[in-house]
């Protein structure tokens, strides 16, 4: 369900057709949106970016433009009208969209990400450990293909082998069937949570850029 949220001024980072993906200027590794600000209708393109070149004629005055952004709470989108577009330097001015809408509203984005994982699940009487691969991942949990007998509600330890190092987390088994285990995190090792957020944001931006569903 959509709901309106406030967002502040963004820099356009990537463009794909009529969708503009924006982040805060120069802070691709941090949370790209602060929801307490005010929406401003002027968005500045990155000069000479391939994304800027692909937009071209779609930016005629009065054309509708969907603006979207990655946020840990969901996908922020709004529709604005093109006011002015020029290429030297690249500048895009749109009408004040008023409010961004938070779509896909859930506690965290889930992105397809296949990396090795190792789970340890404790039951009433014993603990089991097994290796497998993740199917998707978010800052709030994961699903994985792991041959592990466990019950929903069991406490679980997850070691996730991200490309730049392990991420450790603990949580609860949400479901387990046919070697498909879903885990909700209750705590993520702070030493790795920033890396996880960066991986998720890059994957989400890529999904938005290529038009794949999150």
């Amino acid at each position, binding site marked *: 369900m959509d709901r309106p949220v406030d967002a502040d001024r963004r820099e356009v980072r990537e463009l794909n057709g009529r969708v503009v993906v924006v982040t805060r200027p120069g802070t691709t590794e941090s949370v790209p949106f602060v929801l307490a600000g005010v929406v401003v209708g002027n968005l500045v393109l990155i000069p000479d970016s391939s994304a800027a070149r692909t937009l071209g004629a779609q930016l005629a005055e009065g054309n509708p433009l969907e603006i979207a952004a990655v946020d840990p709470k969901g996908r922020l989108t709004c529709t604005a009208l093109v006011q002015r577009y020029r290429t030297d330097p690249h500048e895009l001015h749109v009408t004040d969209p008023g409010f961004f809408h938070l779509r896909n509203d859930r506690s965290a984005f889930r992105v397809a990400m296949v990396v090795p994982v*190792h*789970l*340890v*699940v*404790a*039951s*009433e009487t014993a*603990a*089991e*450990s097994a*290796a497998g691969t993740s199917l998707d991942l978010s800052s709030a949990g994961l699903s994985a293909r792991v041959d592990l007998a466990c019950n929903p*509600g*069991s*406490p*679980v*330890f997850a*070691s996730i082998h991200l490309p730049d190092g*392990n991420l*450790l*987390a*603990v*949580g*609860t088994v949400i479901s387990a069937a046919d070697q498909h285990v879903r885990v909700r995190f*209750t*705590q993520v*090792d*702070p*030493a790795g949570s920033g890396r996880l957020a960066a991986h998720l944001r890059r994957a989400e931006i890529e999904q938005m850029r290529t038009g794949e569903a999150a």
Partner: protein
Amino acid sequence: MSIGGRPVQVTVAFETSRGAVALSASILKRTAGGVVLRFEPRRTYSGAAGTVTALLARVDGTSHALLMRPVDVPGRLLADGGREVTFAFLARSDATTAFLGALGG
């Protein structure tokens, strides 16, 4: 430490170079920000004092999963059967409060 006359058993999990391992341990006592554990005999694993470790437990039917660090691991022996090891929770949270509360005392 016991609840209803039974010792509180937990699973301690951590990552090694050969993957994640799970060890059984019993809680000897709780501290202000952690627990003192005793691992079951015949299991020995090395790890530095900063090794991030998970405590997995079910107490009175409630699941608990917390990250912690060993704080007294001389000789890099994280788990040395029969020896006491003090662990400190990585962060204070509702989850740690709930777990320590479940232990009582």
